[in-house]
C-alpha cells in the first residue's frame, strides 16, 4: 500500500514569523520541504533520513556541511586545450591577425615566411581556441551538474549556483574555461561563507575583471563598467548611490587586473588620489570601497533578500526583508547564521512558502535525477542542450544581471521544454541522438568539400563548387593573407580532435522495481509516483487520468501481472507527472 505523504503547509499566521518551528511540527513532509528548498530534493529514503534527525539537526546537517565527508566528488579532468602561448588571447580575429602581420607571430604560432595565405596558421589558431574553450566549458557545466547530483552537501552547490547567477560572467565573453572553473571553485568555497570576503574575491577574480572591462579602467581614464555593476547588481541595488559615487568607485578600482589566473595590481595605472565615496573621503582602493559598501545597511538587506528569494519564495514583505537584513548585518555578513534562521523559521514552513518557488531549469533537471535515484547525469539527453532549451545555460548567463528567475522561468515555450526534457531523460532517443560537440554546424560543408579535393578558394565559395565547371573552380583560388571561413572549420576540427568525449549513456533507471516495492495496483502505483515526485497537491482529474492511463497501458490493474513489461508505461506516467504545472514548483 502506497504511503501518501500529506501536503502539509503551516498556517498563514506563520507568514513572516522568524521564530523557530516548534519541534512538534516537524514531520516527513516538512523534511521534504526543507530538502527541496535548501538542496535539490531527494528520494523518499533521503527525506526520511533527514526527518529522523529532527528539525535542528536536519538544518545543521545542511548548513554545516563542512563537518561531513563528501566522498564522490572528483576534480575536473581537462582535455588539454590550454598552453601558455594563449595567455593574453586577442579580443577579436582582426586583432589576432594584425599582431601576426606586425610581428610575424601570434598566440605561439608563426606566420609562414612565403607562399599563399601566410597568416592562415594564426587565423586557424584563433578559431581553435574559440571552439576549444566553448567545448570545454560545456564539459565544465556537465561536470558541475554531476557534482550537484552526487554531493552530500547539496546546500553548498545550490548556493554556488546562486552566486554564479549573482556575480554573473559568461564564457562567451571571458573565453577561458579555466577562469570559469576557477570561479566555480570560488563560489563553492564561499558558498555559505562571508559575503564581504566573497565580494572582494570576486572583484579580484580574473573572469570578472575581464568580463567587466577592468583592462580599460586606468588612472586618468576610468571605465565605469565594473564600478556601476558592483553597486547596482552585486551589493546595494539601484537608487542608493549617485553618479558621482560610480565615477569615484571606478577610480578606486583603477589598475586592477590579472596575470593569467592570478590577481594583479598595476601600480602605475592605479589612481592613488583622494576619492569621495558614499559620504567618505580618502585615498581609497577597491578593498576600501567594498568595505564602505558593506557598511551600508541597504547592502545587508539587498543580499539577504537575494538569498531568501533564491531559496524560499518570490514574495517578500518589506518588514521581513528588513529583519533578514538585520540578521545578516549582525552576523557581520556570515551567511550560515542567516540560513539557519530562515530554514528553522515558522515562515519557511508557512503556506506562503509551499509552492512559492519555481525551480530553475538546472534545478529542475538535477532534482529530477535525484528523485529518480539516478547516480550520474546521463549523456543522453545532453545536459547543456537540455537546460538551454529550458532557458538556462550554465557558465553563460544572459548578462551581468544573471538570470531573472521566478516567473521569468515560465513561458509557454519554456514550460513545454521542461516536459520535453523529462521525456528525454525517462525515454531517451538513443538511436536518434547526435553529439553536438562533434558537429561543426554550417561549417560541416567545408570539411566535405576539402575532402572531396576542392582547394580552399573553391571550398569556401558561396556557391557549390561541385556544380561549377573546372575552369570556374580554378578561378576561385586566389591570393590572400588568410581565409577566415576555412579557419572556422579548421578550428572545429583541431578542437574536436583533443576534446575528451562525453559518455553518451542513458540514465540508469528501474522504475519497475522502485514502484513494485511500494505498490500492488495501478492506483497505488500512481499514488506512489505522485507522492514521490510532487511537492504540490495534484488535481483529482490528473490522478484519475493517470490511473486510467496506466491501467489501459498495462491491460490490468495488477502490477504483479504486468511486472515483466511495465517499465515504459511507468516511465510515461512519470513523464506526465513531470509535465504538470505542480511539478514546476516546490
Amino acid at each position, binding site marked *: 500500500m502506497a504511503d501518501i505523504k500529506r501536503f502539509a503547509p503551516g498556517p498563514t499566521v506563520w507568514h513572516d514569523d522568524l521564530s523557530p518551528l516548534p519541534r512538534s511540527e516537524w514531520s516527513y513532509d516538512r523534511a521534504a520541504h526543507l530538502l527541496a528548498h535548501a538542496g535539490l530534493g531527494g528520494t523518499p529514503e533521503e527525506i526520511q533520513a533527514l526527518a529522523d534527525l529532527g528539525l535542528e539537526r536536519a538544518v545543521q546537517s545542511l548548513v554545516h556541511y563542512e563537518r561531513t565527508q563528501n566522498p564522490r566528488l572528483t576534480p575536473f579532468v581537462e582535455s588539454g586545450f590550454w598552453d601558455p602561448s594563449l595567455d593574453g588571447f586577442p579580443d577579436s580575429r582582426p586583432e589576432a591577425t594584425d599582431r601576426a602581420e606586425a610581428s610575424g607571430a601570434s598566440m605561439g604560432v608563426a606566420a609562414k615566411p612565403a607562399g599563399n595565405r601566410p597568416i592562415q596558421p594564426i587565423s586557424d589558431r584563433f578559431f581553435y581556441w574559440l571552439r576549444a574553450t566553448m567545448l570545454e566549458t560545456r564539459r565544465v557545466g556537465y561536470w558541475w551538474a554531476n557534482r550537484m547530483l552526487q554531493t552530500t552537501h547539496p546546500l553548498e552547490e545550490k548556493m554556488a549556483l546562486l552566486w554564479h547567477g549573482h556575480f554573473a560572467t559568461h564564457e562567451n565573453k571571458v573565453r577561458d574555461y579555466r577562469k570559469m572553473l576557477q570561479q566555480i571553485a570560488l563560489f563553492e568555497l564561499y558558498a555559505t561563507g562571508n559575503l564581504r570576503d566573497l565580494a572582494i574575491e570576486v572583484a579580484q577574480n580574473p573572469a570578472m575583471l575581464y568580463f567587466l572591462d577592468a583592462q580599460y579602467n586606468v588612472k586618468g*581614464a576610468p571605465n565605469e563598467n565594473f564600478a556601476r555593476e558592483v553597486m547596482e547588481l552585486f551589493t546595494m541595488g539601484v537608487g542608493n548611490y549617485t*553618479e558621482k559615487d560610480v565615477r569615484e568607485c571606478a577610480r578606486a578600482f583603477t589598475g586592477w587586473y590579472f596575470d593569467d589566473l592570478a590577481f594583479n595590481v598595476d601600480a602605475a595605472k592605479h589612481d592613488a588620489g583622494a576619492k569621495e565615496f558614499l559620504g567618505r573621503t580618502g585615498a581609497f582602493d577597491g578593498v576600501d570601497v567594498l568595505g564602505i559598501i558593506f557598511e551600508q545597511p541597504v547592502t545587508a538587506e539587498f543580499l539577504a533578500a537575494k538569498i531568501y528569494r533564491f531559496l524560499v519564495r518570490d514574495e517578500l514583505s518589506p518588514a521581513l526583508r528588513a529583519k533578514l537584513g538585520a540578521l545578516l548585518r549582525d552576523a557581520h555578513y556570515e551567511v550560515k547564521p542567516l540560513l539557519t534562521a530562515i530554514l528553522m523559521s515558522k515562515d519557511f514552513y508557512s503556506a506562503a512558502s509551499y509552492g512559492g518557488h519555481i525551480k530553475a531549469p538546472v534545478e529542475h533537471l538535477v532534482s529530477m535525477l535525484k528523485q529518480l535515484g539516478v547516480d550520474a547525469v546521463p549523456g543522453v539527453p545532453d545536459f547543456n542542450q537540455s537546460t538551454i532549451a529550458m532557458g538556462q545555460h550554465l557558465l553563460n548567463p544572459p548578462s551581468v544581471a544573471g538570470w531573472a528567475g521566478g516567473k521569468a522561468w515560465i513561458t509557454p515555450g519554456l514550460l513545454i521544454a521542461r516536459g520535453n526534457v523529462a521525456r528525454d531523460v525517462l525515454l531517451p532517443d538513443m538511436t536518434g541522438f547526435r553529439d553536438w560537440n562533434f558537429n561543426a554546424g554550417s561549417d560541416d560543408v567545408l570539411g566535405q568539400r576539402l575532402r572531396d579535393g576542392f582547394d580552399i578558394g573553391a571550398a569556401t565559395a558561396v556557391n557549390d563548387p561541385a556544380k561549377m565547371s573546372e575552369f570556374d573552380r580554378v578561378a576561385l583560388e586566389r591570393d590572400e593573407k588568410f581565409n577566415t571561413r576555412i579557419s572556422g572549420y579548421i578550428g572545429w576540427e583541431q578542437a574536436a580532435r583533443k576534446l575528451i568525449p562525453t559518455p553518451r549513456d542513458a540514465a540508469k533507471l528501474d522504475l519497475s522495481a522502485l514502484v513494485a516495492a511500494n505498490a500492488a495496483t495501478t492506483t497505488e502505483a500512481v499514488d506512489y509516483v505522485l507522492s514521490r515526485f510532487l511537492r504540490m497537491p495534484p488535481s483529482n482529474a490528473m490522478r484519475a487520468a493517470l490511473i486510467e492511463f496506466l491501467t489501459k497501458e498495462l491491460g490490468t490493474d495488477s502490477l504483479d501481472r504486468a511486472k515483466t513489461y511495465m517499465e515504459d508505461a511507468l516511465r510515461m506516467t512519470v513523464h506526465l507527472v513531470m509535465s504538470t*504545472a505542480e511539478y514546476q514548483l516546490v
Partner: protein
Amino acid sequence: MTIENDSGVSRRELLRIGAGGLGLGLLGGLGSVPPVLGQASRAVAANPTGKILVVFEWFGGNDGLNTVVPYGDPLYYKHRPTIGIKEPDLLPIDAHFGWHKSMRGMKGLYDDGKVAIVHGVGYDRPSFSHFTSMSFWHTAAPNGGNEYGWVGRTASSVDPKGARDNLIVNVSDSQTLAVKAQHHVPLVFVDPAAFKRGLFAQELPLVDALSAQDMPVGDAHRYVLEVTKSAAQASEVVRAAWGEYRRKANPDLRLLDLDKVVALIEAGFPTKLYYVPLRGSLFDTHVNQAAPHDRQLQYCADAIEGFFREMARIGRAGDVVMYVHSEFGRRVPENTSLGTDHGTAQVNFVIGDAVQGGQYGKPPSLADLVLGDNLASTTDFRRVYATLIGDWLGADAAVVLGQRFESLGFIKA
C-alpha cells in the same frame, strides 16, 4: 473607446475551427494545418483594416548620435574626434543630419516618406543602468514602476476582459516586462519548431489533465497553471503558421527575429501587439565601437527593410506600424577606449505606410550638455507611446499611461 475586431475570428474560434477541421482536437495536426490558418486568412482578407503594432527593441543602449549623425554641428566632431563619422561616409538626410552608412535600408524607407525620426527621446532624472532604464521604458513609469508593462496595459485597454487569446506575441527567450498583462498570457517563443510538447500517442489524451488543478495554492501556482493552459493551445498554431511561411531561407531577407512576426501576420493571427527584443545585441559599445556598431545597425536596418517588403508582398503594409527604441543613448564625448558610455536621450524610429515621414521632436543641443556630458532630452518617451496607443491603435492612451501626453502627430490622419 473600442477597437474593431480585426479579423472577426477570435483565437478560441480559430482553434475550434482548426481542431474541427483536423478532427484531431488540439493535439493533432502535426502535418500542415491549412484549415486553421486558411479560415483565418480569409477572414482577415475580408476585413483588412486590423491595425498591428510591432515594437522592435534595441537593448544595449544604441548610440543615436552615430546613427542619425548631426554632421552639420561642429561640436559633434569636437566631442568625438576619433569615432565621429565624417560627412562623406554618411547617407544624406538633410543639411544637418545624415544616416550611418549601415542604415541603407532605413534610408530607402525614409526617402519613401515612411519613417518618422523622433529626436531627443528620454525622461527626467534618467537612469544610467541598462536594466533600470529599460524597466522604466517597459512600464512607462520613469523613476517609478508598474506591475504591468505598457504593451500589456494597452492589451487590457483594447480587450478589457481578456476575451481574445494571443493578442500579444513576444519573440523572446523569456517574457519581456513590457508585455506583462493583467488578463492576457503573452505568447513567448523564439524557435517555433521547438515550441512543441513532445508527447507519445498514448499520452496525448492526458494533456488537459496537466493543468486540471482548479484550486491553486498560491500566486506562483496560479501563474504556472495559466501558462500551461495557454501553451497547449498556442504552440500548435504557431508551429503551423511557421510551417506555412515559405520565405524562411530566402537569402535576400535577413529579418532577424522579425521573420516570425511576418509568418504569424501572413497566417492571419489575431495578434495586435508584437514585441521583439533584439537578441545578442552589440549596442553596448564601451570599447572599440565602430566595427560592432556598423554591423549591428546594418543587421537591424536590413531586417526592418526586409520586413516591410514582406508586408507589401502579403498586402498588409498599411496595417502595420513598427516602433524602434533603446533604453538610453550614449554619452556625447567618446571615451578613451574608442567607445561611448551610457547616456541619456536617444533617437527613435516609427516606420510604416501609415506613418507621416519626417523628423519629430527637437534635436538636443550639443552645447548645453547635462548630467556629466549628456544630452538633455526634449521629448518624453511617453509621448511616442501615446501617439502609438491613441492615434494608431485607437485606444485611450491617457488610461494606459495614467496621464495625458500630447500626440507627436506622426500617424497619418
